[in-house]
């Protein structure tokens, strides 16, 4: 029964989203989003992710059930809400996606390059997307709770803030060009002010998300990648330091606020 309902929700979403949305539809999107809150098509990805988490894969033919996302091996509940975090074993600050790369490599023997050099929605990147949906759904309703105490987290936050204001490329844009003020829009799309806690939480806490306009589940790495595309920079490398630094900046700034993982977007 649950599956039927979900499939219906996904069908409605696709049907409504496929014709070019008019401005009025975009502006009324909040109501539409609320309507879908109980049947987020991201749940289809989540189910796939749960299966992948428990399936033996890769050269080592192992599952991810011993993956340590920061709360101990195999603990998924609440883990995403506390990421990015500093991990002793890698000596690095990692977001959910870079941490999953570590687990896939160490536990399953899967080469991270398959994801880093891959294409969104395909191959191992598609696997990553499903895993992310699974993990973040287990932080649903939990507030953003990143531990900023480690010096490397503080350092990443500082770097992330600098990256946020870094104007570059043919159009002189930085993240701040669009996300530095309250109540602004690009066309009909509302822009969170990421320099303030509420806006940072709105940005950080509503991705990963299911995108109705293209029926795709986008991770935060995918979201940042597309921001840089529209900013007209060169292409950011998947899970690179820039993406981690920006993630720490947003999560740290939005710390304590409610999140809606996984979100629903136009």
């Amino acid at each position, binding site marked *: 029964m649950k599956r039927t309902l979900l499939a219906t929700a996904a069908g409605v979403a696709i049907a409504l989203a496929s014709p070019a949305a*008019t*401005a*009025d539809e*975009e*502006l009324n999107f909040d109501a539409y989003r609320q309507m879908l809150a109980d049947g987020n098509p991201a749940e289809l990805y989540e189910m796939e992710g749960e299966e992948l988490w428990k399936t033996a894969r890769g050269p080592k033919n192992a599952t991810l059930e011993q993956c340590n996302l920061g709360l101990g091996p195999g603990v998924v509940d609440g883990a995403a809400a506390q990421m990015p975090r500093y991990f002793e074993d890698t000596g690095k600050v990692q977001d959910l996606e870079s941490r999953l790369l570590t687990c896939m490599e160490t536990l399953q023997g899967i080469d991270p390059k398959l994801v880093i050099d891959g294409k969104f929605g395909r191959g191992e990147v598609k696997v990553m997307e499903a895993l992310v949906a699974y993990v973040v759904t287990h932080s649903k309703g939990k507030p953003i709770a990143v531990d900023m105490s480690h010096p490397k987290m503080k350092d990443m936050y*500082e*770097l992330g803030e*600098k*990256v946020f*204001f*870094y*104007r*570059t*490329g*043919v*159009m*002189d*844009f*930085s993240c*701040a*060009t*669009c996300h*530095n*003020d309250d*109540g*602004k*829009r*690009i*066309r*009909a799309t509302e*822009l969170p002010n990421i*320099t303030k806690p509420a806006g940072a939480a709105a940005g950080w806490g509503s991705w990963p998300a299911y995108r109705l306009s293209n029926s795709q589940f986008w991770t935060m790495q995918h979201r940042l990648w597309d921001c*840089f*595309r*529209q900013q*007209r*920079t*060169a*292409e*950011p*490398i998947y899970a*690179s*330091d*820039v*993406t981690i*630094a920006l993630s720490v900046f947003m999560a740290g700034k939005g710390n304590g606020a409610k999140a809606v993982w996984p979100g629903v977007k136009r």
Partner: protein
Amino acid sequence: MKKLFIAPMALCASVAVAADLESRVEELMLKSFKESGIAKLDRQVRDDVQKACSSPTQPDAETMKRLEAAEMAKIQWPADGNYTGGDWKEGAKIAISGRGLTWRDDLASANGGGCYNCHAMDPKEVSAGTIGPSLVGYAKVRGNSDEVVKYTWGKLWNAKAYNACSNMPRNGYGGILTETQIRHVMAYLFDPESPVNK
């Protein structure tokens, strides 16, 4: 006595930390990116204006003035001093299109101006952004004196000449729009028949 020595040293240390952070960010903005299609790594390196405007606070007034003068010198004015000749209908297409210059685009197809991403122009277009000021009734409100026309050309060509840290791209200087395209956008803003002035 000791204090006198410590204070300048502490100042030096904090300046050194800031400079270090700056160079680390510059390195990060190169190492975390790869070239893709037309988007090469030179896009990660900032010029004077971009560097000075990469912080939550604007540079001091003197720096702003110096940067603006340098940008002003980069504006290409129409050779014959004639700002007309554009077609507002073509200008509308340019204002509406936000395409071009991403790593998925090629250089052969015309770029859009992306004006509606940030500005209201034709009052009938409800899907207009709010990052920039409303330009509804542009010529009706501002008139079409030589000063206004010249300023508008300059602003479209290189917005940083008037406000070094403006959010607006340098359309002409940056090679986003051609001179012909800028002429069309001028017509969209000034032509009494343009929906912007209806």
